[in-house]
């Protein structure tokens, strides 16, 4: 699974600019679904049709987009001012590198290095230009953070584990899924990081009977972390609630039961800040029972997001277990 993860996390795709990552995933899932489409907002949809009358329509969503920055102004000396796309922290930007759609690389600098709590307003992107004339970027161009994929023991580190790791889980599930009574709708969604904007419309189009988002979640296992009963390496997390949604208790129970049957380590997740695509899917049309299989992740929304490969593989197994058996809510 690691070569797939490396490809996905090193790809470019800030929210609203998902063309490259969508093409990459489309190539990876070729031949694995009965049909593949791209919906009006750019969500990539792959559907495996129902094999049994008793089967349900199960939607699995992972977002393709990543946080990034967008150029607001190129000054007379060729430096680009920018705003965030999604939740970008100023503390993780300084000295960081960003990459634009065409490969142009930029370094994030600051007006005064001695500022204690810097804001993005005081920062700029240095693309090596000397003026407006030779600056390769212009207002409205978007960049993602740039950092290679690395392995640290059983942990994997990269930018945009949030949520390319979810995309990797979905691709892996498609590859490993042998038989299922259900219609399985894989949605690789857009614009999650700016407010779960892609997932709601995709669910409107798919009309699922139930849905699972697959996304990263915070952990409580680092120094002075907020109290949270999720640790890296302790298995996939089954979401009970986050600040945007309450998981359907029947889905929580179903996932816990399937994990127990297969002797898969799993942990319950109660997330105090943040949400996922499940939030928007749950309230699409007349409502969709929704839950989440989460991948514990440290250092979220920094260019070095860390997951444990065992949790990732556990998430794949848990979803396969759930899809291969009948679902009664």
């Amino acid at each position, binding site marked *: 699974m690691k070569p797939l993860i490396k490809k996905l996390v090193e790809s470019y795709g800030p929210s*609203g600019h998902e063309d490259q990552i969508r093409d990459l995933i489309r190539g990876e899932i070729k031949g694995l679904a009965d049909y593949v489409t791209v919906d*009006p*907002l750019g969500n990539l949809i792959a559907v495996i049709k129902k094999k049994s009358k008793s089967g349900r329509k199960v939607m699995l969503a992972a977002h393709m987009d990543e946080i990034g920055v967008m150029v*607001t102004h190129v000054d007379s000396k060729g430096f680009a001012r920018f705003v965030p796309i999604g939740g970008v922290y100023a503390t993780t930007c300084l000295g960081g590198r960003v990459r634009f759609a065409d490969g142009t690389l930029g370094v994030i600098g600051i007006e005064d290095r001695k500022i204690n709590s810097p804001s993005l307003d005081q920062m700029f992107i240095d693309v090596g230009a000397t003026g407006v004339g030779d600056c390769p970027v212009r207002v*409205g161009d978007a960049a993602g953070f740039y950092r290679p994929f690395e392995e640290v023991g059983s942990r994997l580190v990269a930018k945009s584990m949030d949520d390319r790791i979810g995309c990797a889980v979905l691709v892996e599930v498609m590859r490993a899924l042998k038989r299922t009574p259900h219609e399985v709708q894989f949605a690789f969604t857009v614009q999650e990081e700016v407010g779960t904007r892609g997932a709601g*419309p995709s669910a409107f189009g798919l009309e699922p009977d139930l849905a699972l988002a697959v996304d990263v979640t915070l952990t409580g296992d680092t120094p002075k972390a907020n109290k949270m009963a999720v640790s890296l390496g302790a298995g996939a997390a089954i979401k009970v609630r986050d600040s945007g949604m309450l998981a359907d208790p029947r889905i929580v129970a179903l996932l816990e039961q399937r994990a127990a049957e297969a002797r898969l380590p799993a942990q319950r997740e109660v997330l105090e800040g943040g949400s996922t695509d499940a939030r928007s899917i749950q309230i699409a049309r007349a409502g969709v029972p929704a839950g989440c299989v989460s991948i514990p992740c440290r250092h979220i929304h920094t260019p070095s997001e860390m997951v444990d490969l065992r949790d990732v593989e556990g998430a794949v197994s848990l979803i396969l277990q759930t899809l291969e058996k009948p679902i009664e809510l």
Partner: protein
Amino acid sequence: MARKPAKPAKPAKLKKPAKQSAKPRKAAPAPATPQEEASLELLRKLSETVAVSGDEGPVRRLILETIKDLADEVKVDTLGNVFAIKPGPARAPRVMVAAHMDEVGFMIVGVDGDGLLKFEAVGGLDDRILLGKPVWIGESKVPGVIGMKPIHLVKNAERESVVKIDSLRIDVGATSRDSAGRLVRPGDRATFATPFTYLGPTARGKALDNRAGCATLVEILRGARSAYPVELICAFTVQEEVGLRGARVAGFAAKPDAAIVLDTTQANDLPAPDEEDENFKYNTRLGQGPAIYTQDGSTLHDRRLIKHLTAIAESKGIPYQFRQPGGGGTDAGAIQRTRAGVPTVSVSTPARYIHSPGALMSIDDYRNAARLVRAALENWDGKVLRR
């Protein structure tokens, strides 16, 4: 606010700067064709109409009267959105063009015993700009003024603080609750009382946000039915200023394949306070052309539609600028998320001092917004939405 008069940023696109007379002029700056004169006359009427969010009746009536012969079908929906439809050729893509017709303003919430009116803001208004401003209340424009203590009585400490809207009252010259009640009732809407006028190459008026977009949309409807290879669904929406509420249902009803939202956005193009600095947060610049959006607080605008607009502008020689990515938003935020999703882009006419008594807008930018969107619609084909 600025210490020296604003430098109009490169008015390159303006033909000779119009000579400014001491008196505000009623007539539009020359040169204007009869149709341009008519368009600006409509803008004047739209700007001077009192129609705050939730009470769009007066502006809706004006628009309905203006467009009655310009579309094959005109209808008003449950919330008060106006739809005007021009069917295109068979199987033509459905393109929605939307502009909100409501404006920010005030709502009268009570009449005091002395005949003074308590009021609240509707939409985003800054308490600091309210003191002493003349207002119009209701469709009949009952004149009033937001009362204030004359400077003779203001203590030094009071000058340092902002008077909150809760402690302000509108004075309509009534002397008792009864006499005020004959003029105004709780729930009536009010706006700043600003006649529309021309200042050099710019227009000044209240509610240019977004009556400029409404007037542009009327211009688009004036295009011949055969001019557009699309099914054109024009929507004049309600309640944008209180949270994009009208557009949400308008987008659902229209079921468009793509949408263009026409709005008005701030031009904060005054020099930076420190003259050594470059102003890098201007949002847009007056006179630089209509502003195409890339990212705002509620929308990542569709890349394909941005490309279509910029390509058309460049091929037709229509000036344009990008609105700086950042906060704020337009009806696009609601429309793009209706049903299974709608590719959406916004185009705004830049204006200084919006949400205040007197916004300033370049006449050229206004004309070019209509030119740009008309050209984009006239040249619509299957390639626009191709991925």
